[in-house]
């Protein structure tokens, strides 16, 4: 029926070539800032690829993280590194090895995965049982169901990892700076372009984030995507000097950061009384799942925001 070579195939082929090309450029270019920009462009391409694969939830996460937040994080990191270009003459044997070893490891893993994907017979996937048991989870989005119900273990551990990362980042704070606001003290021109942008965009981002959160229950999106959007507009308002960055000793920011993992753990433990660990009873599945999702969104937003801003520091 469909022609062997359509515009859709052409698009997909060009996209694949570009993804690999940008990835190679990004990892081989000497200028770190160029590598960062290439990584942002890579994020845009990968988001498009996920859309083409029909994985809108992943595409949303990639667009928010890869093309949005990672860029902010890495540009800040590159700016802190004073030496951006390594002198061409200083390529020693060790530097060469430091490139070859990860590259060959990556190649090995990629070819192993490719071998598996191409040789495994896909007689039966988990798709049918996931969809069959969907009514019991309280949500209609199969991805959310997997994340918060079937594989709730993974998600609980993931959010705990995120929280642990935040604590690790707080641990790098210099002693005499503990209790100060996260990151550098931001300052901007009063009523300038940046300040105006930072006053105007966050409400719009808030609505988009709530939309992605709300759609996450039944269609697409979810806690992680919405949390990332909230974190991004929060950071924008802080960078624009409109609101102050929180400090690690603040009680409200701490409860924000811990709300998700804590509520999740609480639900998991009360499940023990009913049946077993981490069981969400069918009767209360919908409100409970939404509540977990809401707490997780808050925690992810606060944690990502604090991680990107980093430990308190004083400008040199």
């Amino acid at each position: 029926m469909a022609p062997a070579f359509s515009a859709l195939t052409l698009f997909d082929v060009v996209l694949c070539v570009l993804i690999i090309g940008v990835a190679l450029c990004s990892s081989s270019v000497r200028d770190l800032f160029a590598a960062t920009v290439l990584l942002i462009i890579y994020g845009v391409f990968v988001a498009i690829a996920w859309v083409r694969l029909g994985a809108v939830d992943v595409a949303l996460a990639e667009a928010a993280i890869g093309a949005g937040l990672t860029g902010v994080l890495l540009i800040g990191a590159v700016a802190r590194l004073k030496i951006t270009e390594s002198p061409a003459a200083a390529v020693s044997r060790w530097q060469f090895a430091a490139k070859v070893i990860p590259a060959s490891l990556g190649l090995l893993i990629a070819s192993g995965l490719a071998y598996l994907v191409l040789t495994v017979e896909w007689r039966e996937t988990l798709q049918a049982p996931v969809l069959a048991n969907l009514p019991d989870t309280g949500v209609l989005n199969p991805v959310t169901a997997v994340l918060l119900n079937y594989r709730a273990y993974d998600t609980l551990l993931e959010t705990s990892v995120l929280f642990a990362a935040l604590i690790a980042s707080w641990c790098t704070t210099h002693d005499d700076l503990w209790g100060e606001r996260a990151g550098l003290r931001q300052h901007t021109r009063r009523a300038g372009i940046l300040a105006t942008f930072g006053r105007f965009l966050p409400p719009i981002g808030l609505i988009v984030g709530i939309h992605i959160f709300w759609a996450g229950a039944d269609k697409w999106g979810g806690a992680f995507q919405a949390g990332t959007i909230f974190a991004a507009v929060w950071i924008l308002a802080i960078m624009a000097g409109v609101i102050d960055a929180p400090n690690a000793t603040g009680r409200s920011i701490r409860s924000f950061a811990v709300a998700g993992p804590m509520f999740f753990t609480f639900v998991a433990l009360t499940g023990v009384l009913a049946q077993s660990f981490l069981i969400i009873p069918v009767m209360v599945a919908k409100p409970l799942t939404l509540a977990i999702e809401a707490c997780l969104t808050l925690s992810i937003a606060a944690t990502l925001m604090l991680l990107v801003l980093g430990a308190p520091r004083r400008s040199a």
Partner: protein
Amino acid sequence: MIEAYFFAATVLLMTVAVCLVRVLRGPTRADRMMGAQLAATAGVAILALISPAGSPAMLDVALVLALLGAFAAVAFVKAATIDGAGDPEEESQ
């Protein structure tokens, strides 16, 4: 019509690819940053063009990209100031 959209989207991919030259060559960081700006705008257009072949959910990806695509550039102009936390407009000439 879907075919026409995908052809257009393919050409847009090529325009981003061409701009990689500017990202690699620079010379200034602002020049490289513009490559990311272009990729974000073109990415929004590409996502809008390929969404008729799928679900309306794909437009939400375009929406998120439209919202957050400019943030990296904001981080860039802030990082380019003297103390890394300022505003390019503050610095007196």
